[in-house]
């Protein structure tokens, strides 16, 4: 019974206070790769712990002639676990299908309207020719913006305004940033957290947590861009493109992240080995906890 209580406490602890605490840990941003691993392990461990409560109760309630009441409790717990799993899978399906359809529709428009460019600044740079990293399309629009469409047929989309606004080194930085997203499949990380966000009950849902994961993904892509062309082009591109972003977006996100990203740009130079090692160890321990507890409960 101790294990069942421990699993329950672990599930609640990792699902509710942990993301809120982690979202406030700004030191995490100095080691974004490790931080994302921690985030994923904590979320996954919360899900595993919650799902394990039902099965962990079973040996205490079934088999023994302890009366119908306990058997009912065990059955109920298993049903709750199964329900949670179903809810999670349904959210995964819904979110995945929606994202793919938004991307497909958008890619069709971009392919139809965008100029597939091989003009000078776009065709140069490492990986520019490799098709896996997304071909570049330019929309004829004055608002400067840049984004990528992940998936099987990846695209990097720029506007005419971006091409006019940014000098070649900043353009290269933007492309390196977007290609880093595509190469590292950051969309899958975002999809994972969007699914969890949709599936968990409202009291466990945290906007700050989702915003922090998004920020970490951006910091990681910024670092890739810095490695290509240095700190300043990325910083200048952030300022230049800030004018093109959506006016309401910051409200939904609880404040813009551009300043934070700018301040983190020269962190790339100083690797935080100890911090990262500690975070990886923590991630592994957190993920192991619900598994060990379940094994102990069943054994």
């Amino acid at each position, binding site marked *: 019974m101790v294990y069942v209580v421990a699993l329950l406490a672990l599930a609640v602890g990792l699902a509710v206070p942990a993301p809120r605490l982690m979202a406030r840990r700004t030191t995490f941003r100095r080691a974004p790769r490790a931080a994302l691993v921690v985030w994923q392990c904590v979320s996954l461990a919360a899900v595993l712990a919650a799902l394990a409560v039902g099965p962990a109760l079973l040996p205490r309630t079934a088999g023994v002639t302890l009366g119908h009441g306990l058997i009912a409790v065990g059955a109920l717990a298993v049903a709750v676990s199964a329900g949670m799993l179903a809810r999670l899978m349904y959210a995964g399906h819904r979110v995945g299908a929606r994202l793919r359809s938004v991307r497909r529709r958008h890619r069709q428009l971009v392919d139809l309207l965008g100029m597939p460019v091989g003009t000078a600044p776009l065709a140069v740079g490492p990986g520019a020719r490799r098709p896996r990293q997304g071909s570049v399309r330019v929309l004829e629009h004055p608002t400067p913006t840049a984004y990528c469409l992940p998936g099987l047929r990846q695209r990097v989309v720029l506007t005419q305004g971006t091409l006019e606004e940014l000098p070649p080194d900043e353009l290269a930085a933007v492309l390196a940033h977007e290609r880093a997203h595509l190469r590292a499949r950051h969309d899958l990380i975002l999809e994972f957290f969007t699914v969890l966000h949709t599936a968990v009950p409202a009291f466990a849902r945290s906007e700050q947590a989702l915003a922090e994961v998004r920020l970490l993904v951006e910091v990681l892509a910024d670092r890739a861009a810095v490695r290509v062309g240095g700190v300043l082009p990325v910083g200048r591109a952030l300022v230049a493109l*800030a004018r093109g*972003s959506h006016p309401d977006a910051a409200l939904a996100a609880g404040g813009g992240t551009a300043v934070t990203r700018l301040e983190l740009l020269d962190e790339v130079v100083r690797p935080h080995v100890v911090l990262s090692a500690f975070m990886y160890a923590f991630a592994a321990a957190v993920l192991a906890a619900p598994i060990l507890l379940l094994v102990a409960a069943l054994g």
Partner: protein
Amino acid sequence: MPNSSAPRLGDLERAVMEHLWTRAEAGSQPVTVREVHESVGAERALAYTTVMTVLDRLHKKGLVSQQRDGRAYRYAPAATREQLTAQTMRDTLGTLDPPDRRAAMLHFLDDATSEEIDDLRAALAALEARQAPGRGD
């Protein structure tokens, strides 16, 4: 060229749309499959039915309007190139539900506000100052 049909179909849709837009801008009536085939299809040695398929696909995607004219259909672009570009931009900049948009496409910068510009400039100036002496990396 490898014989991958998917990008080729995309290219064709593009060429057909370009043609329809040019015709519409010139003030022309909706055009028949035959006319599209003659101008877009002939130079690429396409079958008539291929052009028909492309127009049908574009219609299903809502990009082209179709109207019956006797036994044939006539086609016109559902929106001008500018309108469609504006719609595409609205999608990326905010019409879509924010969680969907933010996970569906990854922007270089998604959430800056105009009030932030001054802070950003100051942060950039500080960064430039830090980078200036020695450039020790």
